[in-house]
Each structure stands twice: as C-alpha cells, then as structure tokens.
C-alpha cells in the first residue's frame, strides 16, 4: 500500500540538509505552509536558498525562518512589503543575498523545471535591468529574453486536502505557487488540513496528482473553517478578528 502520510511536520522535514534549496509555497500569507516552516526552524538546517514569491511577512512563518539566520539567499519577486521588516533589516545589513525575478518568470521558470523544458524565451523583463546579461532574441517581430528553469531539493507547500497517494486540492487563492513548486522539487512535502480516504477526491478536480508529492502531513483545519465550511471571524493573519479589535482598542 502506498502511504505518503507522515506523522508530523517535524519528521516531514527532518532530512533537509544544510545548504539545501527549498521552495516555499504561498503568496504573502495565503498558502504559506506555516507548520512546515516552523518545523524547519526547529530542525535548524542552515545556509538555505529559499524560493518564494515574497520574503516573509511580520514575524512568523518565512519571516521567522529568516530571523533565525537560516537563509543564505532568497529568490523572489516581491521582497519589500509593509510587513517585511525582518528581510529588510537582513538585506540592508548585507546578511542575505537576493535574486529578484519578475513574478511571471518565477512561476514559469518553476513550471519549466517540472516540465523538462531546458529554457524558454520570455516576453517579460525585456529591455529592463532584470534582463541584464540575459540572452535576447527577436521572434516573429517581438523581443524575448531567455530564462532558465528553477529547481529545488525540497518544496514545502500547503493544500486543503490530500490523500495517501499525495493527490491534492487547494482552497481559493491559497493555491498560488503550490502546484508548480510540487512539480519542480526533488522532494515535495505538503501540509494539509485533512488527509481524506483514497478515492474521495474528485478525479476531475484534483489539482496536484500524487506523482508530484512525496510526503503529506495533516496539521488540522484552518481556523476560519469548521467542518469544511467557511465561518469567518478572523483577520488576514488568521487571528481571531475580535482579538485584533481588542488589541486596537
């Protein structure tokens, strides 16, 4: 019997070595695999290269990983945000390397890695400083720059539900980078709200087939859902909305 489920987040990330390249899903906080990141922090692997759209928000998740000094380099499209102070300080202190990639090139380069594409001519970034030093070609009258795949040793992503084969479905815009990252990493580790019995996911609606997934760990239902239904009552960080109001008061 195939069983990709893992007992907890700690064992799911236990073999990530120092120096690994790790893709981390999420767009801002949505879809960020917070429990896996916390486990990676506890695990302590250092000198990591992180691929993510952003460079951390607030003091939790990816930001906390950065704060612990475990990250050597980050590949992302949008590091500077209103709540990216952890990254900002590290970057200004010269303690983290940044490779800035336009978001569409980031997504397509990750897809290319998973799809066996050697390189592709992209319309994005042409004539800008982010294309400096890149091969350019005019095809059918339009300018393109050559972009190469981005691979990783591990991908840490978050999904709504998974089964023991690793089939996944996501929720709303928390889907974002998960499906392409799952295809591009040697080892893909997924946190899900719930592991469901094999055969209970609609085969027409599976977004990530299990072939792209190595480990699945259940972390419990996100607390703005109850029994699968949206109940609200939280802020964008997922904290109780009334607590935030009390804080503000």
């Amino acid at each position, binding site marked *: 019997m195939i069983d990709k489920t893992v007992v907890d987040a700690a064992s799911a990330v236990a073999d990530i070595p120092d120096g690994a390249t790790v893709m981390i899903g999420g*767009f*801002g*906080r*949505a*879809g960020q695999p917070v429990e896996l990141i916390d486990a990676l922090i506890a695990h302590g692997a250092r000198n990591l290269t992180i691929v993510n*759209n952003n460079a951390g928000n607030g003091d939790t998740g990816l930001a906390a990983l950065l704060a612990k000094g475990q990250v050597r380099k980050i590949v992302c*499209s*949008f*590091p*500077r*945000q209103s709540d990216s102070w952890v*990254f*900002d300080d590290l*970057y*200004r202190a010269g303690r983290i390397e*940044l490779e*800035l*990639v*336009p*978001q*569409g*090139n980031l*997504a*397509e380069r*990750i*897809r290319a890695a998973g799809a066996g594409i050697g390189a592709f001519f*992209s*319309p*994005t*970034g*042409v*004539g*800008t*400083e*982010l294309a400096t030093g890149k091969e350019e070609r005019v095809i059918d009258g339009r*300018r393109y720059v050559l972009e190469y795949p981005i691979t990783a040793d591990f991908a840490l992503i978050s999904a709504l539900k998974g089964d023991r084969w690793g089939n996944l479905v*996501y*929720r*709303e*815009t*928390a*889907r*974002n*980078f*998960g*499906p*392409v990252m799952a295809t591009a990493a040697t080892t893909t580790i997924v946190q899900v709200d719930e592991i469901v019995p094999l055969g209970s996911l609609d085969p027409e609606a599976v*977004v990530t087939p299990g072939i792209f997934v190595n480990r699945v760990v259940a972390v419990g239902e*996100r607390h*703005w859902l109850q029994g699968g239904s*949206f109940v*609200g*009552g*939280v*802020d*964008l*960080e*997922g904290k109780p*909305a009334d607590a935030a109001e009390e804080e503000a008061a």
Partner: protein
Amino acid sequence: MSTRITRDELAARIAADIPEGAFVNLGIGAPTLVANYLPEDLEIILHTENGLLGMGSAPVDGQVDPDLINAGKQAVTAVPGAAYFHHADSFAMMRGGHLDVCVLGAFQVAQNGDLANWSTGAPGAIPAVGGAMDLAIGAKDVYVMTDLLAKDDSSKLVAECTYPLTGVGCVSRVYTDHAVFDVTPEGFRVREAFGENTVASLSELTGLELQ
C-alpha cells in the same frame, strides 16, 4: 483647482472606458479604486494575478477569508462565475495577451510607451517587482493611472524614462489628474483635457510636444 480632478474622479473616468465583458487587472494601489466605479449593471471580470478571475469587492465585517486575497494582499471575495488557478496558469493568461485591460501606476511614462513603475533606482532601496513587468507586457491595453506631476512638480510624462524600466513600448494610454493621453507613434496625443487644461498648458507642464 479647476485644472485637476480628484483621484476618485480619475478612477471613475477610467472605469467609464472599460466595456462590458472586458477582462481587467487593476494594479496594486490607486488603480484598485477603479473597481469602485465599474457600473454594477455591467459584467466586467476582474483578474488578480494570484490566481482568480471573477474577483469581487472586499468582504463584509467578520467575513475576511485569509485564503482569498488580491495581488495587494487585501481581503476580497469571488463572484458567481469565478475560477481559481495556479500561478503559472495565471501568468500564462497575462503573458499570453488574454487580458483586455490592465491599469497600472507609474513613476514615468515615455512618449514611446516605455513604462517605469517598479523602482526609483535609489541607492539602498530594496527592489521589488512582483507582477508589474508581466502586466506591462501582457494586456491588450495597458492604461496608466497617475498624477501628471510628481511631488517635486516634475512631469511623469517624459521624453525618455530616467527611472529603471518596467516594460518597453507597452503603455497605450495614460490617465492623469490633468488629462488623458494616448500613446501614438508620434508621441503623446491629448485625448481629453480636464477643466481648464489645454494642449498648450499641458505641453508647458510636461515640457513635451503634444498633439
């Protein structure tokens, strides 16, 4: 101030140019305001590059859903007829030229349609590009929404961008607080001047030969 319209008036002006059935991406910041002025009786489908077509307005109190956000990482909703997709599919949609309109902010727009809106190039600034370069080259029409003048009164319409480029020759129209400009092979053409503005006065403000 009869030579300037307000930001909300400008958003309404842009909204009035978007036809029913258009697929539209509204950039982070001021362009987001345009959504408030799209007529409710017209079906205009909003795209957000983090994976949603059919984006709706902000949720009501207590109904914030952390899984449902826009590119500016604000809480949004989804309308009936919406579809979710992953990031590579979303950007394929943009880069493949399927969006009808995107509305972006700008630091500078050059008369050949070059856009600079992602970096001032200031030393020590932390660069961040996001989806700006993909939006700039992807939509059938790229509209810029901006004040005509920067805080130091310099013109944001320029002969040539001095800030780092976002995209080359990509802007089709610029909506400013003073006037609306089309980008043409011969440079900027005044499409509509607000209030007391004239081609001559706009020419003086921008230092550009205008049509």
